[in-house]
């Protein structure tokens, strides 16, 4: 017999992983929905997954690469920035979409129960398809420039996971905050923009001397971006310490985010 006990929750409860797994089918269908509706009624469809990072790359190459002559660790500037923009776009989209996800699903939240965490989680996961499309373009560009990936490429899934956890960690935090404070909606684009320039996408991390370079890893996206360059383009700076710092910070952000989320979760339906 399946018994459910309903009572006021304690303030700080940990994530109910078992329940999340129980609702995996709902998660699956939410991701599927996001994927199916993302480019419905657009002319260019899936091309949008490429257009955004690609044109940012073109703009960066013109202004930072050509005009400002920003160094690029001896790699052609377009590929130097594009290899960073691909994971960055995944991160920025995941962050933006998950922040708005709960508010966008208000009708679900007020009418039916399921672990709320599924909603921001699904919105970050559904960005993976866009990432894959953009990544294919990246590989094509690398061949065009005669650059071939190294064996370090096996680290890419880990680096993607790092970007994922960071996006989700910040995303769930902002999404929970967004339920009560709609200001978040206006903060997110601003935050993403600042974060873009706080991440070595247009410039190399080698501009910084040690120990500042390692400390820079406090921004988890620094580890992701430098990791991508190292794994795909063979940059000299092995970013091991940076990635370790980034991973620790990302996990901390994620834990803090999910604790906050679970604390706020119980009032979502009342406040949203």
């Amino acid at each position, binding site marked *: *017999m*399946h*018994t*459910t*006990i*309903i*009572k*006021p*929750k304690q303030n700080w409860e940990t994530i109910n992983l078992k329940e999340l797994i129980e609702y995996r*089918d*709902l998660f*699956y*269908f*939410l991701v*599927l*929905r996001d994927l*199916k*509706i993302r480019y*419905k*009624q657009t002319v260019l469809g899936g091309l949008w997954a490429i257009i955004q990072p690609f044109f940012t790359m073109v703009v960066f190459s013109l202004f930072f690469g050509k005009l400002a002559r920003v160094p690029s660790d001896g790699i052609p500037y377009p590929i130097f920035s594009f290899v960073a923009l691909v994971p960055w776009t995944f991160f920025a989209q995941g962050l933006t979409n998950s922040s708005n996800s709960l508010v966008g699903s208000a*009708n*679900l*939240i*007020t*009418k*039916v*129960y*399921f672990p709320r965490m599924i909603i921001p989680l699904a919105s970050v996961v559904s960005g993976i398809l866009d990432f894959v499309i953009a990544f294919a373009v990246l590989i094509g560009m690398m061949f065009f420039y005669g650059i071939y990936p190294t064996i370090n490429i096996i680290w890419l899934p880990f680096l993607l996971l790092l970007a994922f956890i960071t996006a989700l960690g910040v995303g769930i935090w902002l999404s929970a905050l967004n339920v*009560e*404070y*709609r*200001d978040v909606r206006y903060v997110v684009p601003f935050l993403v923009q600042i974060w873009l320039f706080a991440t070595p996408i247009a410039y190399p991390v080698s501009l910084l001397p040690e120990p500042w370079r390692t400390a820079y890893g406090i921004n988890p996206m620094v580890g992701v971006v430098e990791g991508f360059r190292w794994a795909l383009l063979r940059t000299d700076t092995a970013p091991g310490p940076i990635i370790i710092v980034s991973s620790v910070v990302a996990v901390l952000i994620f834990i803090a985010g999910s604790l906050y989320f679970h604390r706020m979760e*119980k*009032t979502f*339906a*009342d*406040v949203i």
Partner: protein
Amino acid sequence: MSDIAIRVKNLSKLYYIGERQQHHRMLRDTIAEFVKRIYKKIIGIEPKKQPFNNNRQSSSFWALKDISFEVARGEIVGIIGRNGAGKSTLLKILSKITQPTEGYAEINGRASSLLEIGIGFHPELTGRENIFLNGAILGMKKNEIKARFDEIVDFSEVEKFIDTPIKYYSSGMYVRLAFAVVAHLEPEILLVDEVLAVGDIEFQKKCIGKMEKVAHEGNTVLIVSHNMSSIRALCTRALLFDNGCIKTTGQTDDVINVYLSTNTIGSAERVISDSDYLSKENKISIKRISLLNNAMDTFSVYWREPIKIAMEMEVFEDIDNVTFGAGLKMLDGSWIYCTHHNDYSTSPGWSLKTGFYIIKFTLQNELKPGVYKLAVGAHQEHYMNNLFHIESVYIEILGHTKDGVTPLIYNPGIINGKSIWEEPKIFQPSDLNNDNP
């Protein structure tokens, strides 16, 4: 195995007013409060007083207060009460959508809650995709949906359009598809809100049939409804909620009688207060609305009996060209019909001088038994120029005439239609000509 399906013990729910209204706290409010608090602490004025908390407490109310009851396995229990009595809050707590503030509840068995149909339907997705999505949202597993998919499509009668995005569906198709998914849930405990019972009677009938079936299979149903006739038809027991408390419980008929005798329906007169107005210009004020042909001193009339209303009002300034209107609405707010005193004439409306008035009118009543909203209002010159609008008075159409004749409840539709038939006879072309002058 426990014989209790639902056990609720000392359950309470505190709402903050701000949460219920569509007001969202802005970050700056919180920051402002925070700064004020720090400032006061530093300055040393009233160090204990926290304006933030005080504010919250003064604007809170108990939607449920110390509720306890049990529902045995296989029982169908109805929950009735006025709007805001706490019925829906209870259902939301039992569905785990919102949390209780105090107390606890225990649900023994797989529970499904239906607060709305078609939850999560996305207009861009096809019928097929929406069945899976909606099923998953309602707690079905992928395999369960797959196994019942054909049945669901069959039931919905939209198989031709199952791969069409539902934004192209008619509203009838939409509702049928949504209901088809719901009908194939197989819960041991079903929690249903009244929203299910709105819509066309055909649909209500399907819902009622479904709930009866669920109950006959030994499952438990908890229904929140305003529809006294469906509660009466379905439930063995009922709970009457009032102001967040259980006012009474027992046999359905007894509880409904208590409800009708205490509710707005419970008196053939209704004193109108400021909170009853949906809109008001300070030119006319309604004092009282009474039902003249009331049955049993309640705000109810016999089936098929025209509704005779008297309205007492005060006019504060001389006004002319006033048009009065009255009509009936479904509980979900949709109009059944609306009429005006000068609908079929070109007269410009009445002129009224300052003073007290009584105005009487009769509304046609071909409605099915049930509870409806009485809407009254008046406008000056143009219908946009509203003088007042009230629709807080409920009226019940009883399930029988004065002589005890009962209607065919299960005919679909909102009204009691009437058609006149002749017995079939052998076709003669001349018959047509004779019957059509």
